[in-house]
């Protein structure tokens, strides 16, 4: 924990992230390029034909969207327990990208759903809980934006982030209980053929690096702008 805190001070973070950024950015471009190439050259699926390509865009987006909320929840916890300013910035910076990936997952899923299910939207458990996740993100961001006083906004958002962390599994569970139709778990249980699995894993790694890159940039921007503001207000 001590070690973590040492690197979590804003100055150390600026240095570390400055050094890492070029690599994560390069990794993002490389992995996504490879993933897309593999994705477009897979053999057509016997059921889905070429629309299966959509999987490589859709599934990682959906996964990252869920992971991003995990990031917010953890950062909120840190913020509330240890009052760590960097964790506030980290949580705030993750939210827009989480929302973005959620929207991307919804759009790609719905584009995929049209040929597969003959409809843009189904009130299925997974889809619905995913839509609700988007609203949770929006509410979280709205709260951040609405409170002008930064320290107060941070603490309020952290409380909401934690409450959401408790509630999201409940939402997911209740919606699944309600109705389910969307494809079940298939990666970990090994139901996916290796031809599809590899490009998917590469794309997932690419999305993960994309998220980390964007996230770090957002944290850096926020730290810099806070510094600028302090200089401005602190002056005579």
């Amino acid at each position, binding site marked *: 924990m001590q070690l973590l805190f040492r690197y979590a001070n804003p100055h150390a973070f600026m240095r570390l992230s400055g050094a890492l950024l070029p690599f994560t950015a390069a990794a993002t471009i490389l992995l996504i390029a490879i993933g897309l190439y593999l994705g477009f050259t897979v053999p057509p699926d016997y059921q889905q034909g070429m629309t299966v390509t959509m999987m490589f865009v859709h599934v990682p987006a959906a996964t990252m969207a869920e992971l991003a909320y995990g990031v917010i929840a953890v950062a909120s916890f840190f913020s509330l327990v240890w009052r760590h300013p960097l964790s506030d910035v980290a949580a705030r910076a993750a939210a827009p990208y989480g929302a973005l990936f959620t929207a991307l997952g919804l759009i790609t899923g719905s584009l995929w759903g049209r040929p597969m299910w003959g409809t843009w939207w*189904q*009130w299925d458990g997974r889809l*619905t809980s995913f839509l609700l996740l988007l609203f949770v993100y929006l509410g979280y961001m709205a709260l951040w934006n609405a409170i002008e006083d930064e320290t107060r906004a941070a603490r309020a958002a952290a409380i909401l982030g934690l409450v959401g962390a408790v509630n999201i599994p409940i939402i997911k569970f209740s919606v699944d209980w309600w109705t389910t139709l969307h494809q079940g778990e298939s990666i970990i249980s090994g139901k996916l053929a290796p031809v599809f699995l590899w490009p998917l894993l590469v794309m997932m790694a690419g999305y993960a690096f994309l998220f980390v890159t964007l996230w770090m940039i957002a944290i850096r921007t926020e730290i810099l702008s806070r510094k600028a503001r302090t200089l401005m207000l602190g002056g005579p």
Partner: protein
Amino acid sequence: MSAFRALLGRDLRLAARSGGGAALALGFFALVATLVPLGIGPDVKILARIAGGILWVAAVLAGLLSLDRLFQGDFEDGSLDVIALSPLSLESVALAKILAHWFSTGLPLTLISPLLAILFNLPPGPTLVLFISLLIGTPSVSAVGAIGASLTLSLKRGGLILPLIILPLLTPAVIFGAGSVAALMDGMQPGGGLILLAAFAAAACLLSPFAAAAAVRLNLGG
């Protein structure tokens, strides 16, 4: 005219500052539209059948959401006194507030309604009718709402009474608006409903500034 624009601009800015303005009305609209299927169940046929009604009611409720503060905020903090002494007549003040309210609720709601119609599996034709009916009809929500808001402006919890006052007055809008969507779904012409809706909205927008101004004047005496 520029005084009018100054007031309109101020109110729009206030709406935006309170954490997103239009975004919030949109969020509420979308959330209500999501909750209803959760409550009813995922039967696509039923959902398409009730979409027009539900979305219209959700639009009216989303409009209601920020109505109670239309005049009340300005009344409580003393701004309304200052505004009342400005060169603008109270009628113009009311009109500016109605416009600001519509720009930050009715209009954005209308614009995303086709998206929500997809969630309800509404076919393209009825979706278009829904869109048009909201475009014509939502101004009446802001207009009738302004009357209610001005009447309740001195009540600390006016937001509570407000729906009771204005929802009954807004039933024509819901009936004609949602009715025209339902008409098309049932294979009939939606035109008649839309014309009646337009007439209702026009009447509401013309009369409301006068009624609202009278109510404000009354409350300033408090």
